[in-house]
């Protein structure tokens, strides 16, 4: 029996009255991993923000399985002027006070030694791993990755790809949006191609 976690039907969405995303449909089963690829401005991030409820669709429907929790990993953050440690960022994924979950997520992503370092002083690759640890810590059903390789050098990108391939949880569904062909070919996940907002 299919265990659908997300159903998107005829979605039109954008930032004004003009839709960026046009007539997009997708059905995602539990444990399925999908890459949505396309050039800049094709509506990839808009799609993720619609799933998160940050942007309201102009028309169409998005149905999430009852109780489904979503973790969102952004491409990068503009450097800011306040101190926050990597551990404090990971703790944002916690719902309660389960500090073992923080430890375990940081250990899985190899960020334990970065724990007390200021987030803004980390390299792009380190920040990406810390953000992933925050998502793992959330223990979500659906992971949304927005341009995960944007600010990574070759080594960090290879590390990221192997981390994605080794994701152990078979129930975790993932939607990654990217315009990076190497990520698309290396991961070998199902691919949805977007062009000018259409599939």
């Amino acid at each position, binding site marked *: 029996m299919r265990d659908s976690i997300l159903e998107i039907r005829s979605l039109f969405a954008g930032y004004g009255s003009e839709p960026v995303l046009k007539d997009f449909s997708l059905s995602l089963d539990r444990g399925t991993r999908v890459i949505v690829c396309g050039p800049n401005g094709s509506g990839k991030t808009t799609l993720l923000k619609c799933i998160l*409820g940050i942007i309201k669709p102009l028309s169409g429907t998005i149905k999430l399985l009852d109780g489904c929790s979503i973790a969102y990993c952004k491409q990068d953050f503009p450097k800011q002027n306040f*101190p*926050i440690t990597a551990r404090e960022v990971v703790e944002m*994924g916690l719902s309660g006070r389960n500090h073992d979950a923080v430890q375990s997520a940081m250990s899985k992503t190899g960020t334990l030694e970065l724990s*007390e370092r200021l987030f803004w002083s980390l390299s792009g690759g380190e920040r990406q791993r810390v953000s992933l640890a925050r998502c793992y810590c959330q223990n979500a059903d659906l992971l949304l990755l927005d341009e995960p390789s944007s600010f990574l050098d070759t080594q960090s990108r290879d590390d990221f790809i192997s981390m994605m391939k080794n994701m152990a949880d078979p129930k975790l569904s993932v939607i990654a949006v990217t315009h990076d062909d190497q990520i698309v070919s290396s991961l070998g996940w199902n691919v949805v191609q977007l062009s000018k907002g259409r599939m």
Partner: protein
Amino acid sequence: MQRILFLLTLKPIVYGLIGMILSGISFPLAGVIIVRNGLIPMRYMLMHGVILGGILSIALKIPLLPVTILLNLILVMIMVMLGRNQTVGLSTSSTAMMVCTMGIASLLSHAFDVPAKDTLEILWGSPFALTSSDLICLLVMSIALIMYVCTCFRPISMVFFDHDIALSRGVNVKLHDMMMVMITALIVSVAMKMVGALLIDALVVLPVVGASRNAKGLKDLFVRSSVTGLVLSVSGYFLALLWNLPVSGVLAVLAVIVYLANACRRNRK
């Protein structure tokens, strides 16, 4: 020393000390919010709101603090409503409200014949002028602020960090943004009465700027700012009593010295 002990038997001095302890601990927490959220331009609008409150208070012979608190809350709400329009923005809307406030203040001052000298006294403030109702107001506000930061630390850190991440975790970003500007409005209103408009940064912002240079994380920044604020306000208060100088002036000079010392130490590292 004997003089200080004698002064501590006087009610205005004790009230002033309690006020400085409470504000020293809690105001820098609001300072973290002001610095992080870039609310410095809004602070100017609020300071002008207090001047308008002062004129109203003198003209209508009503207590200063409730008038200024109410006025500043109204100003903040208008500013937020105008600022929601992305082409206007918070900075522009707060500037517009600041100009409007001063215009009304000038007209009211003329209409009610309020002497400019009396109004300008608000710019200096004095902790010795605190009444018992001011202290209760300050105590309630300080407890509310500390509770807000302690119980909502994680949502606050998410709002500071990134709005999309906060929204994805179910945090009501609009509510927290509104809470933060309201807190700023309240704190500026009270701080004006204690140290005056011109030196408000000494109590609210400078402890944060000083602490942020050495803070090891966000939690650490809140704690260090609060401790720095407490040490500054209490030591500034006693030094002012000892040397018979205005508290606000001593406090401001001390805050700048601590800030410069931190900056030099950091640069040397």
